[in-house]
Structure formats: C-alpha cells, structure tokens
C-alpha cells in the first residue's frame, strides 16, 4: 500500500483546524513533560508511559470523531485522554492519585476513564482493550447506531491472540471499529523485526477481510485523513479498518527505562527526533502563512499555563478518603436501574 500523503498544500487547508491540532499536540507534549517532572518528584507513582513523539497519531485520529463515538486506549493513554477532551486537571489529579482524578484516584496512569467523554479506558494488559473495542462496536451495531469505536494499541500487540480473535470477528460480522496500531517500533525493548514474522503489519488485515492503511504517524494531517476515511467507512457501511501509524517514541518505554541504550542507539533516536510531529505541522503552517513564531510562542505559553494549573489543582486535590477503598468493587443495583449509555 502506498503511504497516504497529507493534503496540507492542496489549497483546501483549514487554518483553524491546523491551529487546533497544533494546540492539542502542544498540550499533550507539555503535559507529559510535566508528568516526567512529577514522576521524578514522586508525585506520580507506579508505571508511567509517555507518548512524547507519538502525538500526531492520537491527536490526528481523535480529531475526526464525534462526541458520541468511543475511544479506547492502552496504558499509554494520557495524550489520548487529553485529545478526547478529558480536562487536564482531572487527568493530572488521577496521575497524582487524588480524589478529583478522572477515575477518582483508583485507576492511575494506566487506567484513565471518562463516561462523559466516551473514553473507555486505559487498559494495562497488552491486547486487552482490543476485544473490548470490538464489543463496543458490536453494541453499536446491535442498537442500529452510526457511532464508531476507535481502538489504539502498539505494534507489539499484533502478536497476541486477542488481536487476531477480535479482528476475525470484526471482519466476519462487519463491526464499526477502527484499529489504530501505533507502531513506535519497539515493544518495550524488542524491535518489530525481532517480534513479527512480517514487517508490514497492516498486511495482517488481509487475513480478516478488512481494509488496511499505512500512514506516516508523524504527519498529523495524514493521520487525520486516513482515520477520517476509515471512520466514514465504519459509520456508513459498518466496515472495520486496520491502520498502521508509523511513529516513534522519543522517551523510554516507561519512566523506569532509559531513553536509549541496549535496544536502540542514540544516533537512531536523534534521527527520529528530527521528525517531531509538532515541528512538522508547525513548519507546514508557517510555510502556508497560517502561523508565525509569535503565535507559536503564545500558544505554547497558553498550554503551559493549562498544565501548570492542572499540576496545582492535582497537588491540592485531596487523597481519596479511606472508605473509597471498599467502594465500587461491586455496584448495588439491578437492571431496573438504567445504566445504559445513550
């Protein structure tokens, strides 16, 4: 398959849209830089997987959704949560383990949820969210709706059974789900070529009678276009799609992992950092006369202020009360209590 190129220079550019995408990616980047800082200070604990370098995929893909569509992510979920519109305060408070967090402090970095925003989690087991997304799409079809479910996972997940089981049923039953592989080249420290029998992993869609696409994940506009086509297909024809977004993570697998070292060289990393999705969009916008250096500085200052506000809010949010330990293990209602999403 040919890689899709972005339509940024074809004369149909939308300055406001580009500015919004730039803002989303800048927010994701600055927010996670603060996460790294908070982790070093011990304000964030446990595992913490940063998305820095991959923003083009999450920002571009989520930008095409309607509010009533669904998003489901992995443990590398901060940036998707922000792109989906969960308030930065609620995300940071969750990372700090506080009661105002989007999961009331009981999920943490890997388990961000928002019922309001149709954000169905952060999931911590590789491949675990893929059947869930397929089930959400089944429910959409069951109800006769025209929503879609967007499911993110890394390239390493294409080797686990749940990926194959899910894509088979989505292809068999024609479910409105878009599987987005965020191919950042490494499953922890294991390179794609050392883990998969084929390197063009989007080809796996062939086995499940499903359309596929490969996109440059560093080009947010290209991601937007490719995901937009898949969403349209899912919405109107209930056809699932497998998309491989080729990207790169600029940080380690998690905060406990060196940025480069045993499995990749510093030179390789530096080569990829040159294709920063934020820098690429900014250059495109500058070339098109949509933004100047002062605009960028202003936008950056604005998102930094949002992140500082989120930090302060999280820092002041109370820890969950002791009784929260035993809350929400089970719910005390039966089916007469309406729990369905509309």
């Amino acid at each position, binding site marked *: 398959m040919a890689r899709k190129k972005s339509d940024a220079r074809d004369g149909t550019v939308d300055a406001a849209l580009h500015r919004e995408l730039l803002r989303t990616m800048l927010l994701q980047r600055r927010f996670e830089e603060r996460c790294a800082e908070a982790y070093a200070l011990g304000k964030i604990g446990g595992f913490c997987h940063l998305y820095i370098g991959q923003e083009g995929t999450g920002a571009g893909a989520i930008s095409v959704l309607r509010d009533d569509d*669904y998003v*489901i992510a992995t443990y590398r979920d901060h940036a998707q949560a922000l792109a989906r519109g969960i308030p930065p305060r609620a995300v940071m408070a969750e990372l700090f383990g506080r009661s105002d*967090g*989007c*999961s*009331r*402090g*009981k*999920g943490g970095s890997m*388990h961000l*949820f*928002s*019922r309001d925003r149709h954000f*169905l*989690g952060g*999931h*911590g*087991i590789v491949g*675990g969210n*893929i*059947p*869930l*997304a*397929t*089930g*959400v*799409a*089944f*429910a*959409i*079809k*069951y109800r006769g709706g025209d929503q879609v479910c967007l499911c993110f996972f890394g390239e390493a997940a294409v080797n686990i*059974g*749940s990926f194959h*089981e*899910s894509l*088979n*049923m989505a292809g*068999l039953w024609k479910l409105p789900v878009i599987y987005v592989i965020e191919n950042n080249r490494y499953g922890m420290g294991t390179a794609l070529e050392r883990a998969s029998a084929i390197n063009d992993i989007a080809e796996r869609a062939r086995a499940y009678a499903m359309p596929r696409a490969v996109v440059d994940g560093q080009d947010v506009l290209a991601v937007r276009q490719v995901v937009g086509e898949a969403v349209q297909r899912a919405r109107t024809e209930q056809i699932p799609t497998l998309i491989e977004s080729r990207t790169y993570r600029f940080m380690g697998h998690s905060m406990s992992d060196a940025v480069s070292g045993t499995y990749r060289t510093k030179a390789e990393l530096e080569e990829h950092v040159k294709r920063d999705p934020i820098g690429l969009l900014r250059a495109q916008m500058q070339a098109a006369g949509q933004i100047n250096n002062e605009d960028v500085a202003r936008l950056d200052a604005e998102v930094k202020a949002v992140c500082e506000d989120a930090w302060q809010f999280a820092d002041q949010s109370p820890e969950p009360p002791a009784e929260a330990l035993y*809350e*929400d*293990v*089970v*719910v005390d*209602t*039966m*089916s*007469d*209590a309406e*729990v*369905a*999403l509309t």
Partner: protein
Amino acid sequence: MAVLTYREALSQALREEMQRDDRVFVMGEEVGVYQGAYKVSKGLLQEFGEMRVVDTPITELGFAGIGVGAAMVGLRPVIEFMTWNFALLAMDQVVNSAAKMLYMSGGQFPIPMVFRGPSGAALQLAAQHSQAWESWLMHIPGLKVVTPGTPADAKGLLKSAIRDDNPVVVLEGEMLYNTKGDVPEGEHVVPIGAAELKREGDHCSLITNGKMVLVAMQVADQLAKDGVLIDVVDLRTVRPLDIAAITTSVRKTNRAVVLEEGWEQCGIGAQVVDVIQRECFDDLDAPVLRVHQADTPMPYAKNLERAAKPDAAKLIAAIQRVMYIN
C-alpha cells in the same frame, strides 16, 4: 409449579429475561444454529434472531472481551462457555476487564453481564475436561459467583445474574442438566448471596454447593434412617458467601463437614472453615472436616475416577468422624 429439568429451567430463565429486556443477548460457541452444545439455548435463535443469539468462532478470549465491551456501553450479555475448562483462555477478560472495570474507573463503568456454562467433572472426560473452578473465581473481588444445584435454583439464580449490574459467574454442571425438580413458573428470582437450608437436622452441619447438593441430600436421607439428622446448607452463591447461614447452622449443630467438588488447596472449604473457626470457635465439639476431589488431575479409568471424586461414602465417613460414631 412445574417439574422441569435443570437444562429446561436455565432455558426458561434465558427466554424470560430476553423477553423482558431487549438489551440481553446470548453469545457463545454453538448457541444458535446448533441449539446449544447442551441445548440450554434451544429455540432461542428462532425466537430472538441472530443479533441476540450469536454463534461465535472458537475464540473464548475474544468473545468474552466482546461481552465486556458491550456491557461497558449498556448491553447485558450472557456469555456461554461450552465448558469452564475452555474459559481458561478467557480469564484475562473475566478477571482483568470484567471484574475490575468498575473499580479502576472509579465507579463509572459497571459491567452488567453473565459468564455461564458447565464446570466440574462429568464422566470419564479425563484431566482437561473435568475441573471445578469455583475457588479460582470466588477469589476475585468484583465478581459474583453462583452455583445452582437444583432446577429451581438454576432458574432463579440465572434470572438474578442477568438482572444484576455486576459480572456474575454461573457455574452449572453437565451431570446436572438432566436432573429434575419443581420449578416455579414465571417470576422466580433467587437472590444472589443467600444460602438455603435444604434439609434441617440438629446433629451435624453439612455445608456444600452446586452439584454436590445432590450427594449431600442423598447422604442426609440415608443417615436419617439411622437417626442421624443433618443440616444441609446449600451455599448457592460462593461469592459473596452467606456467612450468617453458615454460622447459624454450626451454632445449632456444633459440628460441620464441608463438601465441595474441586481440589482441597485454597478450596471453598478452606474459606468456610476459616469462617467457622473465627465465628464459631466456642461452639465446636469436633474439628471441621472437608470432603473434596483427590489432589490429582482427573484420571480417565473408571475406577481411578471414582476414587478421585468426592462421593456419598467419603461424605458419610467424614460425618461419622466429626460425630465420633464408630
């Protein structure tokens, strides 16, 4: 009141709940066109159509997760495992998704669904098809686990399980499907978490569940002829446990035997005995004994399989020991 088989009772519960709530659907291997591997879903495809009676490929992890995903957005799936032995492949979704979603989302995503199917040994199915998983599943916060032993409880507990807003595990038994009993018609709902005193007696408490209820009743009948009166406590639900039912019985009889189908280590009996020693320490006149499967994989040969399974003779021996008879 009608006399139904356990299989018919389950089938009736499914049909009634599907008629009551169009969010309820059945999914699993062979549930539709084949009419159910054990015919529990017989006739449902014809009545409700293929969107609500969904035949899946052989893909336990996948369809268990599809059920959880559908439940996240408000449907009420009933996922059938052809046997719980095959559900081992789906345990990531049962444990990591279904049981924990409500908690790790801070209460935002209840998972109103059922995982059901036969558990435990039938006859000569050998090691991989003869396993009772109650103790594995009752270990997990976030799940409810029911083990109906009679047709009436099968109907009432399955209806409750479908209406419950939590993930509920229903463990049935191949050897139970053809057993018969009185089953109330229409609205018959057995509350989850409530044991039932199936037989009253003052001499010894026999605490059991699921398929073993049949063995317990048979033994209670037999011992009654010798004047030994057994209190048979059918737990019915093993998570949450009905602590009061256990302690009330033991305080009355001062002796107890715990009978279960599965293995000894960390079994249901281990938990029940812990409850008894904490709550009824001063009431006991004898150590509590347990009857369970031998600590081996299930053998194929008839004689060895018989030796491995808990049965009436082993149960009677245990009761006689706690009563210091013989």
